[in-house]
Each structure stands twice: as structure tokens, then as C-alpha cells.
């Protein structure tokens, strides 16, 4: 009875004993996956080619010049790099303490249900589009800063060069503040995960020695999770560097370098956003693309570092287990 089937067995060569459908399917999904690699390659290529006219004209001095004169065809990246870096660092100065503090609260103090609910709300913050942050900033934050915030700072800290000059409302400080708000979710969410991953026995060891909850947290838990926390900071930094709309709307659009945080400035993303459609000729657009290339490289490096750190925490956690 069974042997009657032997005659109808499709005997094929060993290599092709897998159905044709599988081979086709593999090539199809591979092709689609390859498009991702292709898109990235094209992106890098176009950034390189598109900036050629500017690179040829100005060479390395592009990175160090602070002149931005489209009419005279003199372009320099420095004011924009300065603005990008200053606003981002300012954002971190504000959001890291607040964010890590909130992460500590959510991981150590809040009961599990509330912690998840509040974390969910924080993550909703990450879903808010950049242009809406800008909208809020223009109509609420800027007047606030102009009328109250900046005069206050001038009165109290005006001896520092950071808080001198007229109070426009727009400028580095305002941009930094709105960026800080936008980076909260990254810091809080990732740091909280890192803190939650600290093994129970570490905490218990500290408590058993008579440490207060705060001492346990600050001296044991946070250092153990520091790699993940740093990772979250770098993640937030990468986001802040590339942030366009909110910054464009409140930074003041002044391509010059000022020491004072109250002064208007410019960021790489903001100048591209504002001037790209009006850039005429060959060199002008190329200069903007070159700025894009600079920004691209910056974010890649920072993102790469962030991912390494976060990866290290997860493997460290599992090794110690």
C-alpha cells in the first residue's frame, strides 16, 4: 500500500528540493531590504555631490569661517554649527537633570501602575510634531521670555556675558528651552529602562547596609545604570542637533555668533529650512547642502555612540544575571 506512492515521488536533484516559491520569496524580500541600503547610499552620495560646488570653492575653510554673505558668495559654517551646538547643549543642561530626576521617580518611587501610565504620557510628548512645539513656543514661550524670563535673568545673572544684551524673546535661550522640552521623552524613557534593569540584589545590598532610599538610588543604582543614562543623553543630543521646525521658529535667524544666550542666532537645520528655496546659482545651494552634510555626519557619530552605549547596558545586564 505504501509503496504505491514511491512511483509518484518527484525525484529532483538535491540542490533544488526546496519549493520554487521559497527561492522567489527570498529574493523578493532581499530586494526590498536592499532598497534601504540603496537609499542610504544615495543619500550620502547626493549630499556629497550636491555640496561639490561649495567644497571646491571654499575647501576646509568652510568649517571655520563665520561669514555668511550669499551675495558676495562667502559662506562659512561656523555660526550655524555654533548655534546648533549651543542650543543643543543648553537643551541638555535643562532636560538632563529634570529628565533623569523624573526617570528616578518613575523607576524607584512610583508604584508600577502609575509609573507605566506616566511613562505613557511622557511618550506621548514624543509624538507631538515639531511644528506644534514651534507654534506653542512662538505664541507662549517667546512673549513670556521677552517680558519676564529674560529681564529676570539679566537682573540676576547679568554680570555674566551669557545674559547680556537686549531681550528679544527669540534667541538661543528660547530655542534651548523648547528643545529641552522636546528631548524629555528620550531621556526619561531610556533612563527609566536602564534604571529598572538594575538587578534587585544591588539595591538590596545597599539597603541592607543601612542606606536610605536616596543614597541607594544615587550611589548604587544610578552608577550601575550610567551607561544607559549616557546613551539616553546622546540619543537626546542627536535629536536636538537635527531639530528643525521648532528651532527655526524661535531662534531669531541671525547668522552670527554671540556670547549671550539672549541673542538671536541660527542653526544648521534652521538656515537650510529658511533659505533653501531662495538659494540661487550654484554655490549658494551647494553651501546649504554642505551644511546638511556636516549635520548628517554629526548626527551619525552621536547616534552611533548612543547605540553603542545602550547596547552595552543590555548586554551587561544579561551578563551579570
Amino acid at each position, binding site marked *: 500500500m*505504501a509503496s504505491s*506512492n*514511491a512511483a*509518484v*515521488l*518527484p525525484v529532483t536533484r538535491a540542490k533544488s*528540493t*526546496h519549493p520554487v516559491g521559497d527561492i522567489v520569496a527570498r529574493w523578493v524580500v532581499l530586494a526590498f531590504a536592499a532598497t534601504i541600503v540603496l537609499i542610504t547610499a544615495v543619500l550620502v552620495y547626493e549630499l556629497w555631490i550636491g555640496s561639490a560646488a561649495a567644497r571646491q570653492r571654499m575647501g576646509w575653510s568652510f568649517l571655520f569661517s563665520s561669514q555668511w554673505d550669499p551675495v558676495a558668495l562667502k559662506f562659512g559654517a561656523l555660526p550655524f554649527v555654533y548655534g546648533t551646538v549651543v542650543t543643543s547643549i543648553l537643551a541638555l543642561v535643562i532636560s538632563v537633570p529634570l529628565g533623569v530626576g523624573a526617570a528616578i521617580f518613575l523607576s524607584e518611587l512610583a508604584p508600577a501602575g502609575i509609573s507605566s501610565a506616566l511613562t505613557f504620557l511622557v511618550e506621548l510628548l514624543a509624538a507631538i510634531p515639531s511644528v506644534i512645539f514651534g507654534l506653542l513656543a512662538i505664541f507662549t514661550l517667546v512673549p513670556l521670555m521677552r517680558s519676564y524670563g529674560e529681564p529676570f535673568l539679566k537682573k540676576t545673572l547679568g554680570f555674566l556675558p551669557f545674559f547680556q544684551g537686549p531681550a528679544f524673546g527669540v534667541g538661543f535661550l528660547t530655542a534651548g528651552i523648547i528643545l529641552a522640552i522636546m528631548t524629555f521623552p528620550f531621556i526619561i524613557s531610556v533612563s527609566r529602562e536602564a534604571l529598572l534593569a538594575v538587578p534587585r540584589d544591588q539595591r538590596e545590598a545597599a539597603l541592607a547596609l543601612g542606606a536610605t532610599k536616596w543614597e541607594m538610588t544615587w550611589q548604587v543604582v544610578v552608577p550601575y545604570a550610567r551607561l544607559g543614562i549616557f546613551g539616553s543623553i546622546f540619543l537626546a543630543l542627536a535629536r536636538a542637533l537635527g531639530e528643525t521646525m521648532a528651532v527655526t521658529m524661535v531662534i531669531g535667524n541671525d547668522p552670527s555668533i554671540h556670547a549671550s544666550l539672549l541673542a538671536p542666532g541660527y542653526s544648521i537645520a534652521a538656515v537650510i529650512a529658511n533659505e533653501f528655496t531662495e538659494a540661487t546659482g550654484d554655490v549658494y545651494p551647494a553651501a546649504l547642502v554642505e551644511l546638511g552634510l556636516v549635520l548628517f555626519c554629526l548626527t551619525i557619530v552621536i547616534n552611533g555612540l548612543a547605540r553603542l552605549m545602550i547596547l552595552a547596558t543590555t548586554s551587561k545586564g544579561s551578563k551579570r544575571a
Partner: protein
Amino acid sequence: MAPKSVRSQPALDREPPAPLVPEPVSTVKTKLKASHLNFYYGSFQALHDISLEMHTNHITALIGPSGCGKSTFLRTLNRINETIRHSRVEGTVLLDDVDVRTVDITNLRRRVGMVFQRPNPFPKSISENVAYGLKINGLVSRGELRDRVEQSLRRAALWDEVKDKLNESAYALSGGQQQRLCIARALAVDPEVLLLDEPCSALDPIATAKIEELLFGLKDQCTMVIVTHNMQQAARVADYTGFFLMGKLIEFDNTDTIFKNPSKKETEDYITGRFG
């Protein structure tokens, strides 16, 4: 397109199996034959030179302590080990005298079915689970599908318990019922061989007894190879038994001989519980 099974009949017309006449040994046919099988997980050799014949319409049991390679051996028979990375097979497995590596792999697996240690029904309804193999292999028309599902569930002794809830999720069943569902699912495609990898290890004694009864009743339609931890189970259901130890086949013979009169010392030690 896979050939339609010669055994497909409407469920209720199925005749009871003809009573078995004991066959002289020389006419017992070999369904599956493994020759000098070696298997490697990476650099670790899990099977050493296994040669074994499994006879048509009989139940062959594979026993041995944990990690001795019996499950690994079972999984080479339907080539499902190939989903594991860095694995390598040497030697041959013949199904009806044809090397399984020369056969279309999906066809092989339709003919050689498998029931796993833990029940693994799909997140679909009960009838969709049973029908899955049939639909995938394009074996029956829509009209016949319902009948075949019922027939398979009857063969797995599950029909009465689920006939009113065919559209409910398979996960609503108990563990024992899920495993019988998996058996029904495997039987639906009319396999010539059924491989069972410790099918009752996750089940309670009553469910185990039901499944053993079921397997016994399937013998004349199907060749079975069952891996089991449970020596009493092997003694109860199997015609032939093979004893594995550390990747080697120590002894293989009629079940009676193995349990009453083993020729190797290691077999005797295992049977009498001196280790394992």
C-alpha cells in the same frame, strides 16, 4: 501538486480496520531506514553513526536519558533539523528506499508528519488548525474540507469534545485536548509516517492514556516513531524499541526482548533504573 491520498474517504463510510494477522518477520517491510547517521550542532556531535530500520505499520519507540539524542534523531527524519543554524547531517535517511534529501522537502514533510513535545496549535480556530495542512498542500476541494476535518478529529478521538465549538480558538482547549488537536492536524494530511516527540510529557495520566489508545488504533494506517521518557509507555504501545545513550544507538529490538532480555549492559542498567 501533491498526489491525493488513496485513503481519502467520506468520514462516516470508513470501514473498521481488518484484524491484524501476525506477520512472519521476513515480510515486515521497512518504511524508514537510517544508515550511518551523524549529526552535528556546530562542532558538537549529537548523533554517532546511527543505523536503524523502522517498520511499516508498526510503532517504534526510542528511549534513553535526557540529552541522549533521540529527539535529534527524530527530527532528522523529516529534515526539520535544517531550520537550526550551523547544523550538519551525514549519512542517509531512506523513505521507501528513496533518499529524503533528493525529495521535495515540503512533500517529504507532508508524508512524514510530526507531533511536538508541547502542543503548538496555531492562533486560529479549531477547524482552521486541522484544515491548515490540507489547505496549504491543496489536497482537497472546499466541499471535502469539512468532512476531512471531522474525519481527522474523529481519528484523534477529539470530535465529540469539540464538535460544537469548531470555530472557537484552539487556545480555549485544555493541554491534553490541544495535543490531540495537534495530532488531528497532523493526521489530516494523511501522513504515511507519524513522528511523535514525547507527545505526552506535558500531559496528565488520563490524557496520556487517551493518546496512547489513539496511537494504538492508528497503527494499521500509519507507521509511527515515538520518542519517550516513559519506559512504561514504550512497553505499552511499541512493537520495537531502540535505546539511545549519549548520541549512540546502544540496542534495538522487539520491545519484549528489550525489556525482558536486553543484550547490552547499558540497556539493562537503564531499564532497571540504575541510572537515568
